[in-house]
């Protein structure tokens, strides 16, 4: 038990590292070639009115700095933000590394690159319109580093204690928090769906669960991030599951896809494409979109409810003031709901990963009644 736990924690860390590297490549943009018709100061909004769309997407999208708050209003507001390193790779110039505050929030170009905002999303383009790869440490990557640090700190501490005391000593401190969760994943997710082979998949399931949960919770903090509400991140998590499923699948899994047993020939013509689509496309994509949509929608709803104050005060000041308690009440309610959703979505992602892998490694049972439900 101790050895397995320790091993699984090591694999957790390794897997997270791989995830980080993978996400770096996922977020490395395709060469940016299209030319923008206008400059970066395309804000045509009226003075004193809040740019609702920009505000919502500014909070949800990834950015090159960690924006904390504004002092003052409108165009002369002082933006307080933590600059993050921008790392750009160009085949002619090689690597360019600098801090994002050199852009002065998109007002000045730097080193031949300039920052512009499109639909509330910060983008970088080369001034000579050459193509480049962007592997910057953005806000989301920073979030990932923070969550890795938290998980590393917690898990290695707990693992050390188990190594020192063994499993027969009553757990202390952080062990009390981690042990029931690991036990919960093992007993309700891994064992029922994966059967005898469950121990092999525990590192993956635990990594997914803790990584998603930590990042969901980081997203709820003030000045927080929106990592799991980013489709690239969730698609990559689903890709990890997909690769694991493919490499562990047995011949019965593929047999059910390409030659469904006990089905007449003409039905196979219809059934085989459906099976291919449902097993190889819909499963991972639905997994990714479910997590993304839940977290993204949660963040959007909270921001929208807060922004309703400003929309109402745009109509009249009194309406805005009256709406403040309503908005605050709804926001608090939504935050509690999101706390629940953060845990539930991490659990559902882990659970469905286990279910799908379980279907792929399932041994053949000798009845022709195929009553599986295919997701």
């Amino acid at each position: 038990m101790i050895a397995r736990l320790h091993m699984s924690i090591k694999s957790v860390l390794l897997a997270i590292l791989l995830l980080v590297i993978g996400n770096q490549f996922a977020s490395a943009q395709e060469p940016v070639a299209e030319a923008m018709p206008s400059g970066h100061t395309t804000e045509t909004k009226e003075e004193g009115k809040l740019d609702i769309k920009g505000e919502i997407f500014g909070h949800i999208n990834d950015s090159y700095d960690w924006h904390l708050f504004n002092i003052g209003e409108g165009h002369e507001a002082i933006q307080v933000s933590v600059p993050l390193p921008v790392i750009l790779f160009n085949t002619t110039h090689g690597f360019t590394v600098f801090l994002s505050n050199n852009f002065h929030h998109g007002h000045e170009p730097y080193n031949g690159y300039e920052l512009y905002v499109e639909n509330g999303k910060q983008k970088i383009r080369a001034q000579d319109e050459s193509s480049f790869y962007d592997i910057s440490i953005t806000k989301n990557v920073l979030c990932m580093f923070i969550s890795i640090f938290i998980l590393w700190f917690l898990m290695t501490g707990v693992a050390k204690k188990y190594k020192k005391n063994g499993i027969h000593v009553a757990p202390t401190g952080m062990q009390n928090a981690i042990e029931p969760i690991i036990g919960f994943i093992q007993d309700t997710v891994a064992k029922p769906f994966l059967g005898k082979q469950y121990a092999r998949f525990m590192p993956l399931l635990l990594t997914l669960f803790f990584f998603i949960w930590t990042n969901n919770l980081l997203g709820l903090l003030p000045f927080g991030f929106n990592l799991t509400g980013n489709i690239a991140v969730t698609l990559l998590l689903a890709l990890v599951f997909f690769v694991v499923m493919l490499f562990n699948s047995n011949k019965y899994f593929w047999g059910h896809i390409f030659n469904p047993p006990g089905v007449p020939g003409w039905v196979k013509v219809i059934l085989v494409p459906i099976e291919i689509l449902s097993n190889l496309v819909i499963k991972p994509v639905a997994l990714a979109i479910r997590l993304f949509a839940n977290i993204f929608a949660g963040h959007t709803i909270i921001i929208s409810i807060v922004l309703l104050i400003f929309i109402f005060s745009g109509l009249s000041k009194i309406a805005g003031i009256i709406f403040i308690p309503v908005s605050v009440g709804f926001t608090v309610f939504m935050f509690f709901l999101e706390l629940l959703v953060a845990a539930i979505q991490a659990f559902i992602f882990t659970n469905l990963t286990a279910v799908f892998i379980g279907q792929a490694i399932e041994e053949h049972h000798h009845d022709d009644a195929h009553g599986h439900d295919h997701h």
Partner: protein
Amino acid sequence: MSVLTILLEGIASAGGAIGAGIAALGAGVGVGQIGKGALESIARQPEVSGDIRSNMILAAALVEGVALFGVIAGILAIVL
């Protein structure tokens, strides 16, 4: 901006809003069914209400996920 583009943008926004509404309808029916089933089974067997409640929340979250697909599609229809 021609009349056609204005009209098309309006239709896109309306489509997004209507789509989100229909998604909410479906999710409402789904969550209602789940709640009904859970309440009936708790009334039948109160001793396993803890298990039933956790499974109910899980199923409700799955339904909610589908509804949120609709919400995302609606947002995309309005924003893009």
